[in-house]
């Protein structure tokens, strides 16, 4: 039987300086997504947007535990992952505005962010669909004996898709260097876990394939980092893929504008007060108000600049719509 590791908070894995850097990055993701929400409500952004407010420590912690050449695939909720992987905020914001300077050239939008040069192989709007492609990417690394791992992000809802089971089964069978990062926020759109999962401990789904699984507190960036680093070493050493069962909280609606009629308001407010990963890290680092203000001013300026960059961007020529149908 494969092992499930229970991870507690692991203080001391990261220096204060590194933790401050991660704090700044998480704050940047938060301010970026708040701005996205604001601009969407102002009617400036086309399409359909999902933010990951409350889940920032997962994005930052996982990326901190990876090596630069490792690759990721993400979901409909991809802004944070993409920022943490190193894509410039300007390129993401420009994508959300549908500009040619966007990280997908205006062809993708929020649910299809790509930045291949930075190891971001794509966000996917079909729940679960990226998972076998991560298995395949990792298979290519195994074939070519490259020291790289491929990482899949997905939610609890995705673990109910058939493709999740096929992809994990095959990944474990072939012992490919992949990490499967479950962001367990307890919701699939409006449907709570209790209505879509017959079990509560989803690590059992990975263990059923014989896959090594690690439980992680997703509100603690250092714990996410530690687990990822350990998982990466395990996977890259040829022992097989690792499942990260990350408990986290979606502190906002499923999509921007979601009235969340299905959710208890008091409960949500309590989570906001007790589970905000940014507030938790701020307290842990004992940041003074001045220190916080300074960081906040810096990241807010970066976000403002990204909006200015995006608005000044180039609109694609309509007939360019067919530019990339075939290679």
């Amino acid at each position, binding site marked *: 039987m494969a092992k499930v590791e229970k991870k507690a908070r692991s203080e001391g894995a990261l220096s204060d300086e590194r933790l401050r850097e991660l704090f700044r990055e998480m704050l940047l993701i938060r301010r970026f997504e708040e701005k996205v929400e604001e601009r969407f409500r102002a009617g400036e952004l086309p399409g359909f947007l999902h933010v990951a407010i409350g889940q920032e420590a997962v994005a930052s912690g996982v990326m901190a535990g990876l090596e630069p050449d490792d690759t990721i695939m993400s979901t409909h909720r991809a802004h944070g992952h993409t920022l943490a992987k190193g894509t410039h905020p300007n390129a993401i914001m420009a994508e959300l505005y549908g500009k040619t300077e*966007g*990280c*997908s*050239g*205006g*062809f*993708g939008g929020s649910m*299809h962010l*790509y*930045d*291949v*040069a930075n190891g971001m*192989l*794509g966000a*996917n709007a*079909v729940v679960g*669909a990226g*998972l*076998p*492609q*991560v*298995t*395949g*990417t*990792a*298979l*290519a*690394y195994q*074939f*070519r004996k490259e020291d790289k791992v*491929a990482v899949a992000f997905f939610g609890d809802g995705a673990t109910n898709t*058939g*493709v999740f089971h*096929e*992809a994990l*089964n*095959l990944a474990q*069978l*072939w012992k490919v260097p992949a990490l499967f990062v479950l962001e367990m926020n307890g919701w699939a759109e409006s449907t709570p876990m209790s209505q879509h999962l017959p079990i509560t401990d989803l690590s059992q789904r990975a263990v059923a394939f014989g896959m090594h699984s690690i439980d992680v507190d997703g509100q603690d960036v250092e714990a996410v980092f530690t687990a990822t680093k350990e998982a990466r070493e395990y996977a890259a050493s040829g022992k097989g893929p690792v499942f990260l069962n990350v408990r986290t909280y979606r502190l906002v609606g499923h999509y921007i504008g979601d009235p969340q009629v299905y959710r208890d308001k008091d409960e949500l407010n309590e989570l906001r007060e007790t589970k905000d990963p940014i507030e938790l890290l701020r307290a842990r680092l004992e940041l003074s108000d001045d220190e916080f203000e300074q960081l906040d001013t810096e990241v807010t300026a970066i976000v403002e600049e990204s909006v200015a960059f995006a608005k000044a961007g180039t609109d694609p020529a309509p007939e360019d719509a067919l*530019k*990339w*149908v*075939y*290679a």
Partner: protein
Amino acid sequence: MPELTYREAVRDALSRAMREDDDVFIMGEDIAEMGGSMGVTQGMLDEFGAERVRNTPISEMAIVGTGIGAAMQGMRPVVEIMYQDFLTLSMEQLVNQAAKHRTMSGGQLKVPLTIRTQGGAGWSPGAQHAQQFESWFVHVPGLKVVFPSTPEDVRGLLWSAIYDDNPVVFFEHRLLYPLKGEVPDELEPIPFGKARIMREGADVTVIAIGRMVPEALQAAEEAEALGISVEVLDPRTLLPLDEEAIIASVQKTNRCVTAHEAVTRGGFGAELTAVVQHGAFDHLDAPIERVGAKFGPLAFAPAMEQWAVPHAADVLEAVKRTVARA
């Protein structure tokens, strides 16, 4: 020129590519020791080893999805879906993923993946092991669709599929596997989008694919005895399609019949018909006739199965209907 069966020709293309190129590998259900359910990959495990000739679990989504992932990294996987019917299980990965990554990424990604599959009636497997639905894939921008009918074509086109930088759905017909034909000594890649005139004729053009190519050739022989000169054209690749050759042929013959084993309704013949009526409208002397299977799930009993799918006789009847319209 050596002679190969259609089956051997497929194997030859795969083996040559794998000898030359470490990035090419094959995976699918039962393709290793057993050599695939049609015996196409027999012997390849011995030559190339289990890393490059990979048996997979029964996971059609993951077979295609894993192929996509490896292809995105620049490998050239050739995955086998045991029966065309089971392509339905991998539709999402094919249609939403393989076909779209390049556009959605604004040109950052390529997916040089080949999906081989086979199907076709004529051996009474019932409704879930013999369908033909190549036309579904022709409706998907980003995919290429190939359906060769001869050993030479299957070899040359499979090579081109492997080295195409796009996802290619590659259809083989079960009844064609034992068919023998001459092939060039050296493998000559056949470019996509080039039809082959299988037989020249003056009175009517039959555009046929897959098993209906040999059936159409037989019908043409029989028509000749009746004084009707039939041209048989095999587009070979359905996407891209050699519209020019098709239109030129019908402009010459002024009559057209389309023929495939898939059900007629919504089949590839409908697309061919649209191409012909638009490109050769003023030349047409008769309505275009479509030959295909009758519109129902394939029945098991041999008599019912054979009644439902088209044969040379159906092509001949259609040819006669077109020439009857003076």
